[in-house]
């Protein structure tokens, strides 16, 4: 087995173990509540009696706790079943899978665009370090990073949506409209999502800018960069060919570590713009005290983040052989 396959197998196995632990935690937590195993089920007036009986039977809630655990794990891995949402009276997994595409669209689009802009600007200010432009961008980045992301979204919504009428005030699409062509639908969604995306990009770009700048400046103090200068290479070449490549490791690590944060940011922005994604769902779950839905959100967002992080790490290990040797 090559070093790479070995590395990948080990990574993927450890991620599955982590996910399994998270799943176990979501099994344990509701059972630690006062009243034990299914007090939260029985006491909830939202759940009709016949559905309660079905749930008790399906998850073996009248059986010993060990047996319940195995049923819980089996249900999840065979059908993705995590029980019924109290507030919507639909399977948790179904409710979440309907919301997930919105959140994933926001997260992936904004992270990719932010990474591109942030890395380019980071390179630019590293090239022009200590110039007025450098100070300007670093200060703006610091300022943006001091704001609560959802609040920046609200301010943009008030200014651009409410006062300038350039964006709708809520929703991810116009309600109750039938579209003649798929393009009309896409255009409508884009019209609704552009401002939330701009908010997320404004929030994420500074991180990439600062990390790229600092990573590049770190490498610039290495001896081989000095040697490149001594050979008389143009500074732009040194920066792009000699300094940027090794800094990519730090940038990709950031990309992996920041995904969970970006997901949280997107969830908050969804609440601001009333986009029917995971964040909106979480808000509803808190408001309605819908614990199964809340637990489901944790399980599914963890699964998504772990998968995305692992994909980034695979990319990293293919690009950078040093990673495999760790």
């Amino acid at each position, binding site marked *: 087995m090559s070093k790479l396959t070995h590395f990948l197998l080990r990574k993927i196995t450890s991620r599955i173990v982590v996910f399994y632990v*998270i799943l176990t935690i979501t099994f344990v937590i509701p059972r630690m509540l006062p009243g034990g195993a299914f007090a939260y089920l029985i006491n909830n007036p939202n759940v009709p009696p016949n559905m309660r009986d079905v749930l008790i039977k399906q998850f073996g809630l009248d059986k010993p706790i060990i047996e319940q655990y195995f049923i819980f794990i089996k249900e999840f891995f065979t059908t993705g079943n995590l029980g019924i949402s109290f507030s919507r009276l639909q399977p948790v997994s179904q409710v979440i899978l309907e919301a997930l595409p919105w959140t994933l669209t926001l997260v992936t689009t904004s992270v990719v665009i932010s990474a591109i802009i942030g890395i380019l600007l980071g390179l630019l200010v590293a090239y022009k370090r200590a110039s007025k432009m450098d100070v300007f961008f670093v200060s703006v980045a610091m*300022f943006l990073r*001091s704001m609560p992301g959802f*609040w920046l979204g609200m*301010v943009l919504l008030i200014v651009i949506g409410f006062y300038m009428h350039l964006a709708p005030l809520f929703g991810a699409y116009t309600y109750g409209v039938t579209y003649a062509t798929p393009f009309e639908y896409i255009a409508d969604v884009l019209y609704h999502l552009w401002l939330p995306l701009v908010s997320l990009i404004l929030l994420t770009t500074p991180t990439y800018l600062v990390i790229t700048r600092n990573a590049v400046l770190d490498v610039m103090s290495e001896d081989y960069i000095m040697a490149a200068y001594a050979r008389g290479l143009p500074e732009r070449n040194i920066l792009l060919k000699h300094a940027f490549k090794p800094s990519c490791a730090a940038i990709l690590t950031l990309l992996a570590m920041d995904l*969970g944060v970006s*997901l949280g940011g997107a969830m*908050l922005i969804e609440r601001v713009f009333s986009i029917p994604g995971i964040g909106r769902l979480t*808000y509803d779950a808190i408001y309605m005290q819908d614990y199964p839905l809340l637990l489901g959100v944790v399980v599914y967002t963890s699964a998504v983040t772990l998968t995305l992080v692992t994909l980034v790490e695979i990319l990293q290990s293919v690009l950078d052989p040093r990673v495999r040797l760790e």
Partner: protein
Amino acid sequence: MKAKIIQLILSNEKSIMGLILLAVPLAMALVPQLIAPYDPWKTVDRPFLPPSSKHLLGTNDIGQDIFSELVYGARISLLVGFAAAASAVAIGTVIGLIAGYYGGIAEEVLSSITDVMFLIPVLPFMILMAAFLGQGYQNIILAIAAFSWPGVARMVKAQVKSFKNVPFIEAARAIGAGDLRIMFKHILPQLYPLITASTILRIGGAIIAESSLSFLGMGDPTQKSWGGIIYWAMNTGAITSGMWWWIVAPGIMITITVLGLSLIGYAVEEYVNPRLRKR
């Protein structure tokens, strides 16, 4: 050491700027009764009044003075931010110390827990913890601290590993100092500057986390906080009715507080880690 850090903060342009920014929220938190014109809990006028000389930021949905809410909100926002950051740094320091000092299996286990904490989506986990602990700002502090320590643990571990075998530690060991004594009496004091910097830098993050949790409805309904004000503004339709002041003001307070703390934190960090100064 303490005197040195204070001296440093006062001698750096950026951190003086930070102190100036922090002065407003600190004053609000310390003596709200001297600044706020009204009791933030009392209905003092008609609801939804726009800003005027009588009510600087208008009134909210139940006729409370928003400016007074803002002033009283400083205390809980700063308290939660500071307590959560200090707890997170304490947890991270202990974990980092143990992992770095003992090495071996202890390090393996603690480091993999730390790594996992970096992988999970933090916000949903904080919400889950706060939801199951129940309402109350103490639980919000716990929920934020429980998921904010991994960065500190990683940093402290790296530092401890570089200190572990320096002569003065070996000397302490040679005269029979126990592990705990070495860790807490000899190694830990070396880390104080670093710990100070990272606590200051983390307060801002914790304040933003508190406002985020409040914004999603996890806030303590018995306390006024900046995040809580934004939550009620949002829920009462402040955006769709154009009451921008109700939303903008608490956000500006959060931003200047976090910015002020970052400016001070970076100044201390630059001092602790001279390599950063060149940038």
